[in-house]
Every structure is written in structure tokens, then in C-alpha cells.
């Protein structure tokens, strides 16, 4: 087209008045009245105003992923289209910046790869999919649920596995949907942090970290088994600020992480021997009389026994042998830590993903406690907190249909966030099984077996352990329903996939398990295609269930997701955050009115109300009463396999996006040059990594960031022709703790072993 005319047309298109003038001209000819009907509909008058030259509309959103930072987001929308996102400046934690993942959100919302419609697969894993209506999808699902009920006389054959794909509070409506159908089988627990949760609960009666923003007041910071440079970029600024103010920053990790690279001191601890290091330090503090006597006598229980244990069983030399860190360095570290005031330890989730993970956390807690650093601004044994999670869980709490039958055994579903543990008075309960052993539980559970599995906020075949065993277990299932955004390995094996929304198409509310901020998540754009939120799916299923069998589902059949967001608020939340109504959150996130130090009055939530070096509760639950040394898992292969988080993804989330692919388009195994040399492996060479449960192939990268006895690989991928998944090599061995507070033990993710060879 002629350039001048093209430019004129572009001007016309961009201008409301010009477009209208054109249309008026057409209307005057009468030609529009004779147009054939088709897909496009006559323009509604009000619709014309949709395309104006107005300024951006700004919406409030929150990143709902399983991440320390839970960023407050500002979303800029024009013409009903999200143009870009920014970190909210109102939150001093988010402070106007997002991470590489958060900045890519528009690429997720508008990715052509999204799942757009309900679909059913003809032959599981065949790749032969039919597009179906929501009505047909719900017809199939509801028929199956009723069939299970008729066959088994209960609904325990319906299983739910759901975790942290979306931590928006209304998403607990998935659990609510299950409750509203009857007593079901729940995969409970968490693959993330349960051993540490239990450990901190034995020690302090809770899990409550200081406000991370108060780390600026620390004089000594040990980041132990965490990699915030990848996994909590917003906390790094407080660490840097503390250092500007004179603090020393130490990183303890088996890997020389990006955080370690920025530290004043990096100590490479043998994986899983964190407890030995903490206890060695503790013994040295005893010897040097650097124990805070006031704390251990006034605010603690069982310190004398702990000290006796140290004197009898622990030496610095022993700790040096166990950890690989020279005794002199252990002594110096202990002394520096004890003499700094305040000093803090950030206990990462990585170091509790071991068979002795809970014991390791207890040992570190003890070290922080005996130096009097608990209850202090700038101090603390920082792990996580649930202080701000006191919502109504309105979407989650649903009645069972009248006459429902269920499990007669003990227990009931638990969750670390919502705190619900089922109605202990009821005759029947949901049947709970370990989320971290999904394959084994499906294989072993009978009378009745799990016949149908509902997967939400979770990617089982990437996140869960022993991928090959999961595939075998799935063969036992009669129907798999996956609710997801993208075609991941779990959807690949589903019978029905239901398309769900991104945070920008959803109403919900979010808080963090690390910082103290509260963020509203507004629906910034309409849900694309035929996607639905989790609670809209629950309502639609309820309508279908009740049409087929009145009374078979108690979930409300018509809901407004904005109203349901509102229903999550209560006076306690308003008081904690100092607001009168949720609408105030439209102006930006707000921070809880809490002191920056946890346990500021040094009153603990333990049975004794003291810090418990000796925990009878721990003993009653089968652990040592004291924070004693517990040995790690016996190696079952020549090299330890470490599979931490990448900075480009949250497990498999985000990894499929084009922006991530641009920077990180291929998985590698990282190994020490010596380890490579002994096996004749060269940089960039294709290798096999294998162990007793599986094998993967990828290229090798040589780096002395990794110890000589270990291999490093980053989690999982999907899409873009790559379903690489480290959990092919990670078995479902349990960690020592987790069952007490989350219903199931964690997983020894970093107690895995493998060998490597040229492909």
C-alpha cells in the first residue's frame, strides 16, 4: 500500500473520532443493514468507548507463587489489555521491583501456549485431544463422582492433590470443593518446608520469623542453606544494607551459590551435616563461656541437659571432620556470631530437605537461642511465619452433603497455612495420605482405591518424586482431571484438562510466609478464552452435581469471585494491618502492625511457654527430646545429587515462557572439574546421570562452585520440546519431621545420589 495512504489509515484507526466518522459514513449509505450475519456482532454503543485514548488503568495484583517474596504488583491496563507490570512502590519490601519471573507475567498471560478450553484426551498420553464444552467436561466428571459413590458407598475414591501453584486465599476453594462433595482422599503435607516447621514448633511452639526488613539491624548474618540471590531477591537489599552498616555476611552451603559469591565469608559444608556444624559451634560457645546465661536460664527449658549433651558427645574436631570445615574456622565463626549483637541466622529450606533436616534445624535454632538472639530486632532464627494468614478460609470451609460417609480412621486433612485439621468430633473423616509419596500412596491405597484424581495448583509429574513410579501409579487411576495454565507433564497424562486463570484474571488476596505485607489481587483483565478460577470451577461442578443428584454437593452454585475475595477478610485481619476495609488495599499493600522481632517478650508457644531445648513433644513424636546430632542418609551412589531452585523458575512454573527460554534454554548438570576429569568428561559434553530409579541425559558444565562429591542440576522444565525433570532421579525418601504440623513428613530432596558418565 502506498506509504502516505497507509499512514493516513493508521491515523484514522488510532483516532476515535475518525473511526466514528468513517462508520457514520457507512451507516448513511444503508449498506450495513444488508450485511450478512456472521461471527462479528453489531457494535454496541458503549463498546465504542472501550477503545479510547484514556490513560492506563492501574490494578493491584500480587504474585501468588510459592516464593518468599510474594511481590505486590501494579498492573497497567489499556483497552482491556495488560500492557506491563511493575513492583508496587508502596511496599517497602517489593520496593518497586520484580524478579525475572515477575517481570515476565505479561508473557504468561498472553502466551499463545496457554490452555484455552476444557479438553479431553482420547487415550491417556496419546496426545489426541478433543475440545469439549464446560458442560461436557463437568458431565463426565460428575458422572464419575456419582459412579464412585454408588460403587463404594463413599467418595474416598476421589483424591485431591493440590499445593502451592497459586497461594491466593480463595484458591483454598479447591479443598472446599472436595469437602462439599463428601469425604475424600487428601494428599496432605508439603514437599517444601515441613521438617523445619516441626523443628521450630518443638523449639518455640510456633514458626515465626522476624520481619526480614529488620535484618538491616543485624551485626552478623548467616545465610544457611538459602540462596536469596535466586529465591528472594528482595531480601538481598536488607543484607546489603546491614553490611553497609558494618555487619558481616556469612553463607553456609554445600554449593557456592550466587548469594555465597556476594558474602564476606563462604563456608562449604558437607551436605546434610549442618547439624554437626551448629552443634560444634555450640560446643565451642560452651567452652568459651559465650552462652547468654540470662536467656538460657530465664526463657528456656532444658538448656543444662543440652549443654551436658554437648560436653559429652560433641567436639569441634568432630564437627570439622563431619562438615569438612576446618576446626579453626568453626571456632572463629562461633565466636564472631556470639559476640555480635544482634546476630541472626536465616535457615533456608534447602538444609532441611534431608533425612535429618528437622534435627539440623533444631540444632541451628539452639545456636541462635543460646546466644540470646531470639526475640531481638535484627536477631532471630529466621525460617518463615504464618502470623498474617488469619483469613476466614471461607472458600475452603464447606459442609459435607447430608449422609456422607468417609474414613473411620484417625486424622483429617491438615495444612500449614490454613491450620484446619478437620472436625475432630465428626464420625467420619477424609482419608489422608502423604502428598510426597503420591505414587506409592496411589499404588498402596485400597478399600477403596483412589479411582479419580483432581490436580490443582500443582504439577505432579514435575514436582513430585520418582517420576517413573508416578507414571506407573497413574495407570491405576480411572480418571485424572488437571486444572492448569499450561500443558505440563501432568496435563500430558490427564484425561480431562480444565483451563484456569493467571493472577491478572482473578480476584483474591495474598500474604507472605516471610515478609509482613498484605496485597490485594484484583481482576485486571477478563479471563481469556474459556478459563475459570478454581472457585468458579467448584461452583459450576456443584451446579452439575445437583442437577444430576440434588443435594450431592454443597458448594454454592452461583458465586461472584470478587465477593468471595471479600469474604476472606475479617476484623482480625483489618486490625492486624490497621485498615478499615479491603478497599483500602486498592491504594496499595499494607504491612502488619507487628513488632519486627518475633517472640518480642520471649514468651513462647511451647507447653512450657519457654524456648524448649528439651522438647517432650518432640520425644513423644519419636524424635530426640534434645537437639541432638542425627546422621544423614547413607549414600546409595558415588555422588550426591543436589537439585535446588533456578532463578528462572518456581520449580516448573515460568520455565516454559519464551523470555526464560531466551536466557536459559537448556538444562545442564554442573560438576567439579576433578570429578569430570576422573570420568573423562569435558565441558559441554553430553552425559548420562543415573541412579537406582532413573536416568537423564544433558550436557555437562564444569565448575568448582560444586563440591567434588556432588552433582548439581536445576529442577524441572516443560514445553519447548524439553521435559527435563530432576525428580526422575529423586526418590520419595522422607525427611525426619513434618508430620506433626503438616500431616506428613517432608522429602529428603537433597539426600539423593547418582553417578555420571559420558553418554
Amino acid at each position: 500500500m502506498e506509504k502516505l495512504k497507509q499512514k493516513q489509515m493508521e491515523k484514522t484507526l488510532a483516532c476515535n473520532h475518525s473511526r466514528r466518522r468513517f462508520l457514520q459514513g457507512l451507516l448513511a449509505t444503508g449498506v450495513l443493514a444488508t450485511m450478512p450475519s456472521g461471527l462479528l456482532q453489531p457494535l454496541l454503543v458503549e463498546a465504542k468507548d472501550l477503545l479510547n485514548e484514556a490513560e492506563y488503568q492501574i490494578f493491584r495484583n500480587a504474585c501468588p507463587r510459592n516464593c518468599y517474596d510474594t511481590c505486590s504488583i501494579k498492573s497497567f491496563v489499556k483497552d482491556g489489555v495488560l500492557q506491563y507490570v511493575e513492583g508496587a512502590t508502596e511496599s517497602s519490601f517489593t520496593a518497586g521491583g520484580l524478579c525475572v519471573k515477575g517481570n515476565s507475567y505479561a508473557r504468561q498471560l498472553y502466551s499463545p501456549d496457554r490452555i484455552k478450553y476444557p479438553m479431553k484426551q482420547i487415550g491417556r498420553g496419546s496426545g489426541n485431544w478433543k475440545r469439549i464444552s464446560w458442560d461436557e467436561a463437568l458431565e463426565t466428571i460428575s458422572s464419575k463422582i456419582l459412579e464412585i459413590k454408588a460403587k463404594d458407598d463413599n467418595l474416598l475414591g476421589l483424591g485431591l492433590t493440590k499445593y502451592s501453584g497459586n497461594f491466593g486465599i480463595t484458591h483454598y476453594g479447591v479443598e472446599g470443593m472436595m469437602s462439599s462433595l463428601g469425604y475424600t482422599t487428601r494428599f496432605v503435607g508439603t514437599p517444601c518446608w515441613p521438617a523445619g516447621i516441626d523443628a521450630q514448633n518443638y523449639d518455640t511452639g510456633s514458626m515465626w520469623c522476624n520481619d526480614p526488613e529488620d535484618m538491616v539491624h543485624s551485626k552478623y548474618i548467616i545465610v544457611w542453606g538459602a540462596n536469596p540471590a535466586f529465591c528472594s531477591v528482595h531480601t538481598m537489599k536488607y543484607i546489603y544494607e546491614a553490611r553497609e552498616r558494618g555487619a558481616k555476611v556469612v553463607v553456609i552451603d554445600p554449593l557456592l551459590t550466587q548469594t555465597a559469591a556476594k558474602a564476606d565469608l563462604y563456608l562449604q559444608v558437607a551436605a546434610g551435616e549442618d547439624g554437626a556444624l551448629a552443634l560444634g559451634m555450640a560446643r565451642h560457645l560452651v567452652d568459651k563461656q559465650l552462652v547468654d546465661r540470662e536467656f538460657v536460664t530465664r526463657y528456656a527449658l532444658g538448656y543444662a541437659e543440652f549443654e551436658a549433651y554437648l560436653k559429652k558427645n560433641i567436639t569441634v574436631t568432630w564437627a570439622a571432620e563431619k562438615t569438612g570445615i576446618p576446626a579453626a574456622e568453626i571456632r572463629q565463626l562461633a565466636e564472631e556470631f556470639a559476640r555480635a549483637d544482634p546476630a541472626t541466622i536465616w535457615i533456608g529450606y534447602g538444609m532441611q530437605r534431608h533425612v535429618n533436616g528437622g534435627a539440623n534445624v533444631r540444632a541451628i535454632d539452639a545456636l541462635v537461642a543460646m546466644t540470646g538472639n531470639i526475640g531481638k530486632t535484627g536477631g532471630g532464627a529466621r525460617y518463615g511465619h504464618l502470623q498474617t494468614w488469619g483469613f476466614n478460609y471461607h472458600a475452603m470451609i464447606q459442609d459435607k452433603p447430608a449422609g456422607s460417609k468417609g474414613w473411620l480412621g484417625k486424622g483429617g486433612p491438615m495444612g500449614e497455612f490454613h491450620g484446619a485439621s478437620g472436625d475432630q468430633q465428626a464420625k467420619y473423616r477424609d482419608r489422608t495420605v502423604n502428598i510426597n509419596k503420591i505414587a506409592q500412596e496411589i499404588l498402596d491405597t485400597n478399600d477403596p482405591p483412589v479411582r479419580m484424581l483432581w490436580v490443582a495448583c500443582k504439577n505432579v509429574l514435575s514436582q513430585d518424586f520418582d517420576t517413573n513410579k508416578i507414571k506407573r501409579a497413574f495407570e491405576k487411576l480411572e480418571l485424572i482431571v488437571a486444572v492448569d495454565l499450561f500443558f505440563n507433564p501432568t496435563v500430558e497424562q490427564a484425561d480431562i484438562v480444565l483451563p484456569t486463570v493467571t493472577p491478572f484474571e482473578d480476584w483474591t488476596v495474598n500474604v507472605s510466609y516471610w515478609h509482613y505485607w498484605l496485597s490485594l489481587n484484583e481482576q485486571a483483565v477478563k479471563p481469556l478464552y474459556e478459563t475459570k478460577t478454581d472457585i468458579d470451577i467448584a461452583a459450576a461442578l456443584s451446579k452439575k452435581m445437583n442437577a444430576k443428584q440434588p443435594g450431592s454437593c454443597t458448594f454454592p452454585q452461583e458465586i461472584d469471585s470478587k465477593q468471595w475475595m471479600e469474604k476472606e477478610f475479617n476484623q482480625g485481619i483489618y486490625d492486624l494491618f490497621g485498615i478499615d476495609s479491603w478497599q483500602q488495599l486498592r491504594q496499595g499493600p499494607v504491612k502488619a502492625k507487628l513488632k519486627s522481632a518475633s517472640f518480642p517478650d520471649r514468651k513462647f508457644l511451647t507447653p512450657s511457654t519457654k524456648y524448649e531445648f528439651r522438647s517432650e513433644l518432640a520425644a513423644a513424636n519419636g524424635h530426640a527430646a534434645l537437639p541432638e546430632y542425627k546422621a544423614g542418609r547413607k549414600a546409595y551412589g558415588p555422588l550426591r545429587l543436589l537439585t535446588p531452585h533456578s532463578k528462572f523458575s518456581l520449580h516448573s512454573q515460568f520455565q516454559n515462557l519464551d523470555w526464560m527460554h531466551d536466557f536459559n534454554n537448556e538444562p545442564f548438570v554442573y560438576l567439579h572439574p576433578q570429578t569430570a576429569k576422573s570420568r573423562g568428561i569435558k565441558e559441554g559434553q553430553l552425559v548420562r546421570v543415573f541412579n537406582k530409579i532413573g536416568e537423564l541425559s544433558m550436557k555437562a558444565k564444569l565448575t568448582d562452585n560444586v563440591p567434588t562429591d556432588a552433582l548439581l542440576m536445576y529442577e524441572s522444565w516443560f514445553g519447548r520440546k524439553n521435559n527435563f525433570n530432576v525428580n526422575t532421579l529423586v526418590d520419595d525418601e522422607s525427611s525426619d519431621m513434618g508430620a506433626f504440623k503438616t500431616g506428613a513428613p517432608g522429602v529428603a530432596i537433597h539426600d539423593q545420589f547418582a553417578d555420571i558418565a559420558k553418554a
Partner: protein
Amino acid sequence: MNDTQELQQLEALRDFFIARNEVQLAAAYAALNMAVSFDLPSVNDWEALEFSFNRLFIGPMAPFAPFFASVYLEPEPQVMGKSTLITRQIFEMLGLQSPWQESLPDDHLSLELDACIRLLTIRQAHSSPEVEDLWNYFLQEHLAQWLPSWFKRVRAAENLPAAILITIDVLAAWLAEKIDSLKSTDRRLAHNE
């Protein structure tokens, strides 16, 4: 090809690419067969064709060749891009809007083919320089900018069913013919000037 045939072809193509299932695919394909002057390859297994159609265009896996213009026109492939908005503006100038506004990107191939049908009808009934300019713009600066990339991508698919290939060929031939006719009009006008 006369005007009626042309519209019938476009309607059939439009319906084919927005079909939800094998029944709708088969109906649109039959209509296309009526509208073209040769026999389309027969389809023995419509269910298999539906599976292929979904792998190419719908999902749930990342579709091999999504049929949204902005996937090909934006510097980085996405839906709801700037070019989507331009399509919406063109619809508006014709007094039209998508019934799925904001839930289905406006630059879905079938919506664009529907707009072509309306524009061609308008041109037949009451043409004007303004209408011609809009048609030329939509054809040359929009459709001709993305459809060839899309054709190329579809044709590169493994095991591409003959029935899908022929629909692409019919659409490509129509586009080429329209572009040629515009160019010859431009040449004529230039010559006259």
C-alpha cells in the same frame, strides 16, 4: 471465481478455523468443497483430523501454529498485541465487534475472515475511496503481513493432514489473488496518473 463463490469460500474457511469439533470441521469442509472448483481430498477419519487440528491450532499442548495475527506480527509472539487492537479498530469502523471481546483475541483468523466477508459485501454494494482504502489496508498491511508466516508454519508441521493443507492452499490462493488484483489496480492508477 465469482463474488458469490468467493464469499462462500471465505465463509467455509472461517467456519473451518473456528470449528470446535469434528462435526463442525466436516460441515465447514463440505461447504468449502462446494465453493471451490475442484474436489478437495476426502477425509476418512474425522476424529483423527480433529486431533491434528487441535495439535496445530488449539491445544492443550502449545499449538504448533496458533491462528492469532499478533503471534506473527509482534516482535515477540503473543496474543492481545498491538496488532490485535488494530483489528478491533477495523471491526469498529465497520460497526462490528467480536462477541468474545477481551476473552478471545480479536485477531483470530476466523474473525478476520468474517471481517473480510463484510468488507467484500460492502465493496460490492457501495464502494467508496474510503472503503477501498480500508480494504487495501486490512489486506496488505495486516492479512498479507501475517498469513504467509502462518501458512509457512502450518506447512512445516509433521504429518500435516491433506485436508488441512488444502484449506491453507485455498486461503493462500485467495490472498495471492487479492494482492495481485490490488497491485494491478495500483499499476493501472499509476499509469493513468
